[in-house]
């Protein structure tokens, strides 16, 4: 996404919500396919014949007990871990297994980590600047200039994430919740086509949670969102479709009510959990 295109979009309000021109082919409706994916570490099968399809613009919640393979699944999608078998497609054109992290990110898959990871040695503003969609090759990065419209876009996100007071502060000094927000903000700057959000509300206050929920639901439709979360209340508040992972494969899928009614789920998950 070049500086020129950004200039053409200046008139847009909330342009972070604008759909991204990405080469992803979603004519078949789905933006992410996982087929028969398996991976094991030292004999332990973290993912076991996992099949999962995310539709374009969908907001999907994924729940499951610890070690169900949620994080590993994200690692696979973002190219950090290579599965032993199976295939992973982004739209119907891009085979993610052939790409590395930066390429996948460039295609428009953004990820928020379980443990919020922001660049603590940089200011909030700089964190967002780095996250912003731009030409990320070395020389362009070296010669990149700070233009007014970049500032505007960063300000917008700052406003939205309520961090405008802290724009100049080192990210290292933020509270846990604030880091969560900053990371979400970085996701927004990336303007990904698909957001993978790992436990977004951990350590957040009630109203912070509501705003997160609001934001994520707002994103859905234009961008596809996959949320992994433990907080049932939060999931219930945003979920349309819920997928339950267990021992590395899909145990059940459906609305929150269907899922929570599902005996198997109650047994393995709710049964032990709450």
């Amino acid at each position, binding site marked *: 996404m070049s500086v020129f295109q950004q200039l053409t979009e200046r008139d847009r309000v909330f342009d972070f919500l604008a759909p991204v021109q990405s080469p992803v082919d979603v004519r078949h409706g789905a933006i992410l396919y996982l087929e028969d994916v398996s991976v094991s570490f030292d004999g332990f099968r973290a993912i076991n014949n996992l099949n999962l399809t995310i539709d374009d613009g969908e907001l999907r919640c994924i729940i499951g007990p610890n070690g169900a393979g949620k994080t590993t699944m994200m690692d696979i999608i*973002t190219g*950090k871990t290579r599965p032993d078998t199976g295939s992973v497609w982004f739209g119907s054109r891009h085979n993610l297994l052939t790409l*590395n*992290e*930066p390429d996948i*990110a*460039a295609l428009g898959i*953004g*990820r928020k*980590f379980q*443990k919020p*990871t*922001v*660049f*603590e*040695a*940089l200011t909030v503003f*700089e964190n967002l*600047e*780095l*996250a912003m*969609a731009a*030409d*990320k*090759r*070395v*020389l*362009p*990065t*070296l*010669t*990149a*200039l700070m233009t007014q419209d970049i500032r505007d876009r960063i300000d917008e996100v700052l406003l939205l994430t309520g961090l405008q007071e802290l724009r100049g502060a*080192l990210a*290292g000094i933020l509270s846990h919740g604030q880091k969560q927000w900053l990371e979400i903000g*970085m996701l927004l700057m*990336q303007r990904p086509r698909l957001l993978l959000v790992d436990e977004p509300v951990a350590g957040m206050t009630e109203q912070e949670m509501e705003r997160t929920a609001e934001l994520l639901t707002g994103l859905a439709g234009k961008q596809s969102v996959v949320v992994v979360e433990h907080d049932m209340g939060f999931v219930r508040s945003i979920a349309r479709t819920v997928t339950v992972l267990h021992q590395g494969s899909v145990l059940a899928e459906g609305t929150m009510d269907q899922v929570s009614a599902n005996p198997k789920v109650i047994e393995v998950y709710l049964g032990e959990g709450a």
Partner: protein
Amino acid sequence: MPVSSQWLKRPLLERSTQLFLGVLFAAMALVTLLHVALPQGSALHVSAYTVTLLGKYLCYALLAVAVDLVWGYLGILSLGHGAFFALGGYAMGMYLMRQIGDRGVYGNPELPDFMVFLNWQELPWYWQGFDMAWFAFLMVLLAPGLLALVFGFLAFRSRVTGVYLSIITQALTFALMLAFFRNEMGFGGNNGLTDFKDILGFSLRSDATRLGLFIATGIALAIGYVICRGIVTSKLGRVSIACRDAEARTRFLGYRVDRVQLFVFVVSAMLAGVAGALYVPQVGIINPGEFSPLFSIEIVVWVALGGRATLYGAVIGALLVNYAKTVFTGVMPDAWLFALGGLFVLVTVFLPKGIAGLLQRRSAPPVSSPSQEAAA
């Protein structure tokens, strides 16, 4: 897209850099003045000996800046930067050897003396061209640059980071040291290259040339500093810090971490090469000793003492430690290694931000270890 040079102008506008350059040039001017204006006898006269000594310190300072660029901002602890320094030095040394021409003891216009008495028949191919200044000076940049490029490409592509990288950089310089000790290599073996006569037509024995080299080194340091400063204040600099602190995260933002590391690493190696090239004519010899792992790791402690990720800290560190070395080896030789060793321990344990950390309140970015975060 057009490469704007804004990133180079930027540092010139910030106060810290202006201050640094101001102090540097003022000091150089003062030394020059005291050396030229005052008579030999005078109490304040700066002898040619001192000028050369300071010139040597400045070379080390530039080297330290290069190391700080990769260690401070990229989190790559290179224990092999001495290798790049030495390669630059050898490139310059080869040029100076060729300048001797038939003034060598055997009067052989082609071959350096050490080749003659080990009866080599003709000049090895890799010595060709070093009689031309431009070629040699180009090699000063390219030789270290290429080594860094190849080594870095392999290492960063396969994500060798943290202590692994440190250790193999050490192995690299160690291997090079062994290689250059071999006389078959055609670099004079243990004796290295020495007995230089003149550079660009100026006799290396004249005080004027010495002063010239001193000034040249100062300018090189200034330029090197500005380049590094330019990089670290650019967006690339922030990306480097991002790589240092959370490599994986940076990848998920779509940056080619390995490319970033490679670019900065190569730049740093070239700067080290330049430092080496200026060092050789001033000390008058280059030999494989400069490849020794001990030297490379000593550089790191200069930076650590001065303060990582500040650049000017590296300069302070280099000057202080080497001045201390000059004094100690004079006053109490045995104490030197104790002092140096103690410095390593004390700085890392009690002064992680170095002297710069003491100087400035809003200090350098907190330094966290890449190897931990390697794939957080």
